[in-house]
């Protein structure tokens, strides 16, 4: 079965929650999830982030819901890594 193991996302979010809290809550979506975030641009009320999520089986919808719950908005999925570990034959 093909599994998503990495997602690089372009996200717009309000200043609150702050970056560390936002990233931590995102990582708490699923056990074993590793999340790193980088601020690309800061405006008066918002900031644009590049967020990299890594895990054994990522669910984009679940991550997107968590982003929305914290007031953020998923602008684009910039990079995806998928592994297919089904044995051929």
């Amino acid at each position, binding site marked *: 079965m093909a599994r998503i193991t990495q997602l690089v996302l372009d996200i717009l979010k*309000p200043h*609150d*929650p702050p970056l560390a*809290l936002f990233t931590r809550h995102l990582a708490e979506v699923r056990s074993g999830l590793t999340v790193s975030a980088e601020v690309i641009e800061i405006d008066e009320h918002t900031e644009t982030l590049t967020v990299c999520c890594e895990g054994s089986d990522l669910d984009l919808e679940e991550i997107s819901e*968590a982003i929305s*719950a914290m007031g953020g*908005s998923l602008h684009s999925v910039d990079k995806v890594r998928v592994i297919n570990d089904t044995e051929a034959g």
Partner: protein
Amino acid sequence: MERKLNNSLHFLLGITGTHGIVRRYAVVNGFDGALTMLGMLIGFSISADVALPVVINACLGVSIALAVSGVSSAYISEAAEQKQALDQLRSAMVSDMADSAHHRAATIAPLLVALANGGSPLLMGVLIMLPLWLGQFGVDLPATPVQMALGTALTLIFLLGMFLGRVRGSSLLVSGLLTLLIAGATTLVVYLLGAA
């Protein structure tokens, strides 16, 4: 887990910066309540032969009025502030943010601020009135009920000052004594005007 965290009160209060507002409203209106009660009790203590039920009813009436005033005024003003902040954020995010913690926080924060603003003077009033009720029920007190209530009011005002000192990170004793000084000045003015 994520949903639980986002719904947690601590998280919602943090998002709207309501922690500080709740504390400020609680202390300010709590101080108002305690000082108002102190003024009334001084007034009663320098008046001749005021029956205890009259003192209790007057103090209770004032405490309830302060609570209702505190709840309604804080809710109206804080709801407007939160709505304005949310509208600005919606505009910046180009989203209605309907499922966001910010939306939930904008509903919950005014309620909490209103409760703090109205509940603190009521709590102060009830605590200060405890000796009056005890006296009314015939409990033996080391001083008259009004004197005991005055002592309670001064103690609470001192404790509020200490709490403010803790928030500021300054000396608890000095901060407590400062608020006690304000209470002392109030007592003096009420006493002098009442005596005159």
